[in-house]
């Protein structure tokens, strides 16, 4: 489904990614973890070219991502992304946020899009907020709208960039629940997170990044209980599992 080969990325003199190879199969939920600065968010952003790689090849659903504009927009339309700070469009209502891309990019029929948007909002538990502007929502609600907005494009894969890091602790659960539901429905997901419980319970694979390379790639049980990698053990000691 998604294949990244030998991904290198640097910002000036700073090498952030030093040759990452990774493959994610359809329906798989992959959690990327690592200390801050390990390159996990950068890697995620490289997957839909929000960051341009210096080297390496990314293939999504058999199509190679390149920097040509048409190709890029088409691929991005199939790859949903959820951001740490939600990035909802503040000048549009919740419903308009969800409808925007299907209307503008896919040029779908408005009545049809509206129906679909309502269904998706219901799925994330926010149907009663359809006509509200984002600034009237809590952080957890904003993030659920952001997920709904991404889902409206019927993406083949969803990328989550620390989706709960900006939330108050009591709001984390509702977002993780929506993500878990999606995982159970078979959505392919790549999630950068510090939520170890989510990694343990929902992920099919846990990938640990350190200094821009993958140092461990295993199932959650092996990762959390039987890892022999020194850096992984150090990391697990630091975080609360």
């Amino acid at each position, binding site marked *: 489904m998604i294949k990244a080969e030998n991904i290198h990325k640097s910002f000036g003199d700073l090498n952030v990614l030093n040759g990452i190879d990774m493959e994610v199969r359809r329906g798989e939920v992959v959690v990327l973890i690592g200390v801050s600065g390990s390159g996990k968010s950068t890697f995620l952003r490289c997957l*839909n070219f929000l960051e341009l790689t210096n080297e390496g090849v990314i293939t999504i659903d058999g199509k190679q991502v390149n920097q040509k504009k048409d190709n890029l927009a088409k691929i991005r339309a199939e790859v949903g992304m959820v951001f740490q700070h939600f*990035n909802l469009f503040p*000048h549009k209502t919740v419903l308009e946020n969800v409808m925007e891309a299907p209307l503008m990019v896919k040029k779908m029929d408005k009545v049809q899009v509206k129906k679909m948007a309502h269904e998706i909002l219901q799925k994330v538990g926010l149907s009663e907020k359809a006509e509200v502007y984002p600034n009237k929502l809590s952080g957890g609600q904003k993030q659920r709208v952001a997920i709904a907005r991404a889902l409206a*494009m019927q993406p083949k894969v969803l990328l989550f960039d620390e989706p709960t890091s900006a939330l108050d602790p009591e709001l984390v659960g509702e977002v993780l629940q929506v993500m878990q539901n999606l995982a159970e429905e078979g959505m392919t997901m790549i999630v950068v997170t510090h939520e170890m419980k989510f990694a343990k319970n929902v992920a099919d694979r846990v990938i640990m990044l350190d200094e821009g390379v993958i140092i461990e790639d295993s199932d959650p049980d092996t990762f959390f209980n039987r890892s022999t990698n020194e850096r992984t053990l150090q990391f697990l000691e630091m975080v609360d599992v």
Partner: protein
Amino acid sequence: MPEFLLTFYDVFKNTYKGFLQAGLLTIEITAIAIVIGTVLGVIFALMKISNSKVLQTIANLYITLIRGTPLIVQIMFLYFGITSIIVLDNFWAGAIALGVHNGAYIAEIFRGSIQGIDKGQREASLALGMNSSLTMRRIVFPQALRRAIPPLGNQFIITLKDSSLVYVIGVSELFGLANRVAASNFKQFETFLVVGLYYLILVLIFSALLKWYENKLDVDK
């Protein structure tokens, strides 16, 4: 009643018909200049933030030239420049000069407000598969416009007052008429007081309209 107030009232009574017409001319020139300035402003702002070095240079040149020279020089320059090529009356020459002048300032207002929009907005839009121009049109610009309205309003009020300078090419707007009236009735003080009041009233009406529009657009309410 003191002598001065009597003269003031006299001047007002004798000139209000002429000033109403001149005021209309002032409003027309200002409106045309605002339209021209806003269109140029958007175009040059987009050129300035584009990736093309050529477009950036052209925009910078325009803004530097306009901001670096007095409006009154630009009006004279454009009037005698344009009218030597095509037939254009002084009203249009003045309105165009005022518009071109304002375009440079409005470009900077738009550039600032576009660049002030959080880059997460652009990223979210691109990530949804919207291309750059859709992103600008649907996501970034509408938010930037909202943010630009207070400084734009300011600029529009400056435009209204600056329209008085087109009197130098013989347009009989408020200030031009005041000059002629004062030269014939020799009541300079009272005449310019009257015309000052007209400008003040126009600016107050204009400010109220802008305030109303700003409130209307505000989604936080």
